[in-house]
């Protein structure tokens, strides 16, 4: 325990170094900004900025990229509550009660409660990381290649089947991602795989090209001419409007606590990131509430609980990523990819080999969240003004940044063409009902899965039983089987013909896309 405290102090020392602090600030600022702007995605932003971080020290780079992720969660709530636009899927449910509050002239209070819930949820998520990550690391240190291999398999399977959309299609997209990740020269033998004689493919497909293809270009192909400017007439929010009354606070306290717990649980299961956490938190809150009729008409609990869960889940998301090297969703896969590009091997050794990175990141979470509250409460008027920027000005600029970002990774146009092809094909797949998030998980984890698969077999001299021999890897395989079994059971149950009207009603009020 003393040790943890000393590490944390050390982390603050790292995070408060001027340039680390500066890059955290830049990260949360950019995050907050794109959170507010309708139609701009977290994934696209992080990938555009990724090439810029190649020349930076690793700690500053990760602090900034992480800051974009949690910063965007603060901005996203503003968009949902004031405009009724689910700019970011993890804040879509907040619209349901946040917007009615705005129409009742209580938008400011909703935002104030949101900030409170956000900070509480985030703080809980960070504490969870401080206490839980070292514990996970200790277990993970006992893992050999067979255990890592089966754990990754379980993580990929969970990421593919628990996220939104059809489980089968999620698995298919994961496999596509693994294939994309295996393009280029084989690490062991140097054999070129799937390069078709192209030199630019020999070094593999760039993470930036995959991420910007699927989450930049494909996303804009999808949202062009579908995003209208929100109606902000009559919405006025000043700082003093944000102060909740004592009664509001009493009403929000328990929902915040419940939401936080839901979020922290969801963050530990791969594939169930902040979006699913917020939906579960809202549904749970409605069920335990004494007056569920109020939900959908401006219930404070309907804002506080999902917001708290989103933020605790966003911070908790970093636990499996930083301690095991297994990302739970696409954003974490991207951040893991950034670590790999920086030459840092993700996994349990990260905490001991790069304590600066690990504890600096945790300290920067505290600093970043405090900065975000300071940025959002007094400056709320500025963010509200930014909501008026129409999408038709944003996407051409974003496309330009995508081109420049991809070009600068290798200083060649081949990358831009790759990204365009990936984007167009990716959008075609989206129209066929595939979701892009699992691709990135497969792409980032695929090469490490293969490496550990080959190493495990080499150690066991070709005996496949190595994957179920140790109790740890047998447990992972068992969990994977249970997961697949549960999916088959649920799919069979869902096939029972049901009233179509009910199927529509059961869906959320808005159709949205994974981050």
């Amino acid at each position, binding site marked *: 325990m003393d040790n943890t405290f000393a590490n944390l102090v050390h982390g603050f020392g790292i995070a408060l170094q001027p340039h680390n602090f500066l890059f955290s600030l830049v990260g949360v600022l950019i995050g907050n900004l794109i959170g507010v702007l309708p*139609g701009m995605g977290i994934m696209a932003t992080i990938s555009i900025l990724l090439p810029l971080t190649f020349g930076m020290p690793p700690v500053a780079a990760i602090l900034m990229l992480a800051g974009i992720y949690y910063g965007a969660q603060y901005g996203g709530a503003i968009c949902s509550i004031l405009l009724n636009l*689910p700019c970011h899927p993890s804040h879509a449910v907040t619209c349901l009660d946040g917007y009615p509050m705005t129409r009742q002239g209580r938008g400011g209070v909703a935002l104030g409660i949101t900030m409170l819930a956000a900070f509480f949820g985030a703080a809980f998520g960070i504490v969870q990381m401080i206490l839980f990550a070292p514990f996970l690391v200790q277990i993970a240190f006992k893992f050999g290649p067979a255990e890592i291999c089966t754990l990754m398999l379980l993580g990929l399977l969970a990421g593919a089947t628990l996220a939104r959309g*059809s489980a*089968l299609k999620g*698995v*298919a997209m994961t*496999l*596509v991602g*693994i*294939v994309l990740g*295996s393009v280029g020269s*084989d690490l062991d*033998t140097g*054999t070129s*795989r*799937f390069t078709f004689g192209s030199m630019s493919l020999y070094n593999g497909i760039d993470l930036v090209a995959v991420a910007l293809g699927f989450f930049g*270009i494909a996303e*804009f*192909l*999808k949202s*062009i*001419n*579908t995003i209208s400017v929100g109606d902000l007439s009559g919405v006025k929010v000043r700082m003093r409007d944000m102060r909740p009354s004592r009664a509001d606070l009493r009403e929000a306290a328990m929902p915040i606590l419940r939401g936080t717990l839901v979020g922290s649980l969801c963050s530990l299961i791969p594939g169930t990131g902040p979006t699913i956490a917020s939906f579960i938190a809202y549904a749970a809150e409605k069920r335990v509430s004494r007056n569920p009729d109020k939900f959908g008409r401006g219930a404070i609990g309907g804002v506080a609980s999902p917001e708290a869960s989103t933020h605790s889940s966003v911070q908790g998301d970093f636990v499996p990523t930083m301690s095991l090297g297994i990302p739970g969703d696409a954003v974490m896969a991207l951040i893991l990819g950034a670590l790999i590009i920086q030459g840092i091997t993700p996994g349990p050794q990260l905490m001991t080999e790069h304590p600066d990175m690990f504890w600096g990141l945790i300290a920067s979470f505290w600093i970043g969240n405090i900065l975000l509250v300071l940025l959002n409460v007094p400056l709320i008027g500025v963010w509200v003004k930014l909501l008026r920027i129409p*999408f*038709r000005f944003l*996407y*051409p*600029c974003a*496309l*330009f940044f995508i*081109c*420049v970002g991809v*070009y*600068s990774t290798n*200083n060649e*146009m081949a990358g*831009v*063409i790759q*990204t*365009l092809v990936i984007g*167009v094909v990716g959008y075609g797949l989206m*129209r*066929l*009902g595939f979701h892009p998030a699992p691709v990135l998980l497969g792409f980032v984890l695929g090469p490490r899965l*293969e490496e550990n*698969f*080959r190493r495990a*077999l*080499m150690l066991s001299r*070709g005996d496949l039983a190595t994957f179920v021999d140790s109790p740890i890897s047998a447990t992972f395989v068992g969990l994977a089987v249970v997961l697949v079994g549960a999916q088959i059971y649920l*799919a069979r149950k*869902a*096939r029972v013909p*049901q009233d179509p009207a009910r*199927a529509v009603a*059961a*869906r*959320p009020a*808005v*159709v949205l896309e994974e981050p």
Partner: protein
Amino acid sequence: MFRPASKSAGGPVSVPGPHARRYAAGGLMALFGLAVVLEARTFGLGSLARVGPGLFPMIVGGALVLVGALIALTPEAGSEHEEAGRPDWRGWACIVLGILAFVVLGEHLGLGPATFACVFVSALGDRQGNPRAALLLALAMTAVAGIVFTLALKFQMPFWRGW
């Protein structure tokens, strides 16, 4: 990003037959998987004790064939009919052409013209915008590209390569 629920509640918009989409989706994946398997065979499979570069991609490709077949054979759950809004050829064409313009002009004329063309062409894809607004936006972004990328960040591509 999002659409009002009322639009999607009407069911699939542009799906020709009830099964066409899953056949297309599953078939595509199975074909892709088959291609991966065939290509991976040429890399050398090795043995289980000494796995070659081809074995892992081959397993993945085989799994893809299986999953593709399952996608084609299982009826979609009702909740899956959501994507695929009406085709927006103008928007799509402008985005793709804008990026192609960046590639071609960046290669031959430099960052400035590439930026201008990319932003201008892609901005024309919006049905609410007009050419004048697109022109102003493109000029503004070109200025940003010159100041931020060429002057401040010393971007590799020259702003103007000359004729």
